């Protein structure tokens, strides 16, 4: 491994200072499941790890029905999917967190790391975008917030400025009669990178969709929202035809590439199928809420 220093931050201000002083070659160390391998394989020039796991706020998970859910950026995934409130109120987030890597990855990996790493196939990002997530960011100029759907700017790139890092991710309390779902397609049963993933959150009034958010991943340089699918759903009764129209909108919005995991044709087809599935599953849950 390249020469590498390690620093343990115990407060947000200290982490910001360490990151600023470290400059371009300093990196946040959360669960390390992406960044340690990147440093070892010299895919990134990194000479300082700033460990944020000893900052209490970054490791806290809080929920209340008024303010919704706030997950510290470095909370390991086993705590996210193991949380009773996450299971009950945010099942799409629970589903994604539960299948990222295997158990040994989930012992360390975090939502903040999954988002910051900005892989086009990252599994939690479609869920966090569908749930209207907001990243709370700390940096040299104090705190600011950014919507998760504006955070990734390209494969491996995000909108953070030098010295900034994510402190926590926040998700609003879902409206009454809302439901949500997340799915991915991989050729194995577990432990693989998504060929396509998708999420949906929607609200029903009777059988009519009053609000929806639809996202797909691994079909573009970043996870994308699908406004045309939302248009196909909102204001309409949830019939097989409207659900099919949402799937077709996702297929049209997808601009995937051919690679070892899948072809353009397969990925477009999967975008269609997975969006139909998450819409159905979200609606099913909305009827129960």
């Amino acid at each position: 491994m390249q020469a590498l220093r390690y620093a343990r931050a115990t407060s947000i201000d200290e982490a910001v200072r360490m990151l600023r002083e470290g400059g371009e070659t300093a990196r946040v160390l959360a669960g390390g499941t992406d960044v340690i391998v990147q440093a070892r394989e010299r895919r990134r020039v990194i000479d300082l790890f700033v460990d944020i796991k000893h900052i209490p706020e970054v490791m806290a998970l809080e929920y209340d029905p008024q303010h919704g859910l706030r997950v510290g950026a470095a909370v390991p995934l086993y705590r996210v999917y193991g949380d009773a409130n996450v299971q009950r109120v945010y099942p799409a987030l629970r589903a994604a967190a539960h299948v990222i890597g295997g158990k040994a990855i989930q012992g360390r990996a975090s939502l903040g790391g999954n988002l910051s790493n900005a892989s086009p196939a990252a599994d939690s990002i479609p869920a966090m975008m569908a749930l209207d997530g907001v990243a709370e960011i700390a940096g040299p100029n104090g705190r600011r917030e950014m919507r998760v759907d504006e955070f990734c700017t390209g494969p491996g790139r995000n909108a953070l400025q030098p010295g900034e890092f994510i402190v926590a991710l926040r998700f609003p309390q879902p409206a009454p009669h809302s439901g949500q779902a997340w799915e991915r397609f991989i050729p194995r049963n577990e432990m693989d990178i998504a060929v396509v993933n998708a999420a949906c959150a929607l609200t029903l009034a009777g059988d009519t969709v009053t609000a929806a958010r639809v996202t797909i991943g691994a079909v573009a340089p970043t996870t994308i929202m699908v406004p045309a699918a939302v248009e196909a759903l909102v204001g309409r009764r949830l019939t097989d035809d409207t659900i099919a129209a949402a799937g077709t909108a996702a297929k049209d919005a997808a601009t995937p590439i051919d690679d070892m995991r899948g072809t353009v044709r397969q990925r477009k087809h999967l975008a269609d199928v997975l969006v139909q599935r998450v819409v159905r599953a979200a609606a099913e849950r909305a009827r129960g809420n």
Partner: protein
Amino acid sequence: MATSGRLVITATINGDERTFLADSRDSLLEALRERLNLKGVKEGCNNGNCGACAVILDGHLVNSCCVMAAEIEGSRVETVEGLAGPEALHPLQQCFLEGAALQCGICTPGFLMSAKALLAENPAPTDEEVRFWLAGNLCRCTGYDKIIEAVQAAAEQMRARK
């Protein structure tokens, strides 16, 4: 502040408090093998995919190739070397041996630690739950069935003892 080069790390390894020297670039896998001579921790892929390096860190399963040695200051680490009791092998070890759940053995320490973490959380898993839990451990030799059977046999023994 940031430390580079040599580090002095104090952590509880298999129940004993140990203080040792490491390099700030060492992974936990490298520190366990090279600094503490715990050669039961295996390197397979060195990138998080195979589980051969799995250890239990503060009660949770991790791949030691994806943890920096410097991160374990003040923590508790359990490796396969701490599994057997003074008198006998751990039921998991005994059942792996008796059930021929290993051939070359390179994956075995990782499977044992992973299975230990599983049974601590879920003493009576279904076969499907065992397979899901062990999905992060790869074995090129056994074809997995004997491993699943050995974990279930050990789980049964451990339940009977309680």
